[in-house]
């Protein structure tokens, strides 16, 4: 199996899916001539032409709104938002149209569009290149949300998103775009939406994570390995949530520490905690702890490490939980 960086896996998925389905097209700022500021779309315009890989004007609501119209004309558009915090102008189209238009046609029209974007912090970038905006998307009815944590999933989840009959948002952890090459199946590779994955088995506590927090959780598990048996669950899809895997793991370990880099209040792990508080209450041997970003603007990058969940904070939470 070829080894690829995460961003290369994204690029691979786009090539394979555009090859497979001539109704898939890509649009966004700088996705064509440049191949994207992270080069996630490199080569697409040469390969599939200017009509299937389009450099748009600088207007995110315009991109998403146009994509809705493209769906109506029978296309399957894949929109790139250049960065997390630059996707907010498109939230109006997302909430008021992307998530509702199928319903509005009583299921007669499909809106198989994909929004993909790099997300997350830790990259020493200027302000507003660091957000984890998944809550805004997850809370919105009518859209699905996936966040891969490694190259193979980045390819497989994006492929699944492109093939899905519903709108899907895929957040790619930009911190890990180029951190490691790992094996990615060549050709068609689909990781079904809604299926979490136990990354590492354990019996004392479950670390629940997604995206960039999965490798971090793995490191925390390493740090604890001497005396704590840690299970790491990679949710992979936030909506729909794989409740079965979540509850199965927590039922086994009896303890959960939830890790997200987004601000805490109403972050995605609030939902996971709520599900546990409803459906695993009798299995829990202690409080459900969250290790999250804080309820503050993402900070100056010189101190971003203090904001981001760290191995130390995760380890501390696990130890607190075990001694509770």
């Amino acid at each position, binding site marked *: 199996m070829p080894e690829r960086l995460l961003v290369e896996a994204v690029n691979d998925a786009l090539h394979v899916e555009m090859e497979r389905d001539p109704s898939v097209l890509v649009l966004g700022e700088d996705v064509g001539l440049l191949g994207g500021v992270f080069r996630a779309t490199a080569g697409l315009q040469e390969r599939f032409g200017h009509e299937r890989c389009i450099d748009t004007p600088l207007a995110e609501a315009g991109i998403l709104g146009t994509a809705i119209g*493209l769906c109506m*004309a029978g296309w399957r558009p894949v929109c790139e938002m250049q960065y997390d915090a630059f996707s907010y102008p498109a939230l109006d189209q997302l909430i008021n149209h992307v998530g509702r238009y199928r319903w509005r046609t009583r299921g007669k029209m499909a809106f198989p569009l994909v929004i993909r974007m790099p997300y997350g912090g830790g990259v020493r970038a200027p302000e507003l290149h660091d957000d984890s905006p998944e809550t805004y998307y997850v809370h919105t009815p009518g859209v699905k949300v996936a966040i891969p944590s490694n190259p193979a999933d980045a390819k497989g989840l994006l492929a699944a998103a492109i093939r899905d009959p519903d709108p899907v948002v895929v957040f790619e952890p930009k911190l890990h775009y180029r951190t490691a090459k790992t094996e990615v199946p060549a050709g068609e590779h689909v990781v079904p939406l809604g299926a979490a994955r136990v990354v590492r088995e354990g019996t004392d506590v479950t670390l629940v994570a997604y995206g960039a927090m999965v490798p971090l959780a793995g490191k925390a598990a390493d740090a604890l390995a001497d005396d704590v048996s840690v299970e790491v669950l990679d949710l992979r899809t936030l909506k*729909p949530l794989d409740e079965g895997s979540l509850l199965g793991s927590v039922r086994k370990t009896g303890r959960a520490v939830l890790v997200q880099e987004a601000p805490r209040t109403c972050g995605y792990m609030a939902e996971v905690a709520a599900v546990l508080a409803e459906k695993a209450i009798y299995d829990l041997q202690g409080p459900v702890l969250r290790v999250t970003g804080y309820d503050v603007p993402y900070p100056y990058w010189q101190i971003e490490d203090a904001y981001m969940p760290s191995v130390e904070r995760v380890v501390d939470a696990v130890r607190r939980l075990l001694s509770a």
Partner: protein
Amino acid sequence: MSQVLPAEGGLRRVIGDGHALPDGEIDLTPEQHLALYRNLVLLRTYDERSVIYHRQGRIGTYAIFWNHEAMQAGSVFALEERDWIFPSYRESAIGLLRGLPVSTVLSWWRGHPAGWWNPKEWGVASICVPIATHVPHAVGFAWGSQLKGEDRVAIAYFGDGATSEGAFHEGATFAGVLKAPVIFFCNNNQWAISTPLSAQTAAPTLADKGIGYGMPGVRVDGGDVLAVLDATREAVTRARAGDGPTLIEAVTYRAAPHATADDPSIYIDEERVQEERDNECVGRYEAYLRRLGLLTDAQAEDVKQEALDLMRTGIAEAEAEPLADPGLVFEHALADPPASFADDLAELRRVIGA
């Protein structure tokens, strides 16, 4: 490359006033004239009956389009069946011109699921409630159709107020760059609820905005159905020729409340309203047809009766719709719904016993 024209100064006009202003001409057969008249009357009847139905509590809040009929009927008449219409709430009944059942539109205003149609069936997108947000949809559709080699034009309807929204600007920007076969049809009724045009923009005219997107801006008398038809025909021709989008500003004055919930007496110029009512668009066209000998009393009576009959059947059908099943709350949200929907619905049914 097509040329970007500065916005026209005066309002384009075809219908005269029977006195000082001479009637113009337009390329339409007598049958077409009659069909257009029928469309106008249908919309007028729909609108007037709806206000009554609302008062009778048979439909909910309703956005009145009285005296906007010429803009809707005139422009749609310039389209082919394969072209797509993107209406705002002000054009809620524009689908009638494509054969959409009256009961469907009434059901929409009754908040009944039967009011939601399949856009592909009629070439009419869903009614857009949030201002201007459907403008980029029309652009994407038009451009996407062109990419597929389909000869389809899209037309988006919106108001004067809508031109202030970012969504209008972004849609127009995309259309200009993509040379999408799309028409931006602005119903300038000079009010956005209580906000007059002067508080909406400092642009000399709305048509002047066209140049900012590299598209011609055309101003037309919105009460003159033939002028509207004429301007839209030109825009359709440009679009089909690959010359890109056109912005049409149809000028009128809102002669009715914004919607049934609104009381314009607080803010509107009643004299100007009266003037507009005295010169309303259906009557103007009717007088024109009579001047040209294209419409007899009997024909006019028939057309009106036919429209009334359609309305009667429509409201009866809408009211005969069975109560919607609560299952519909979940049914169309996603093509591939999560398991939780079934659980939620089962619980809901258990609790409410339905």
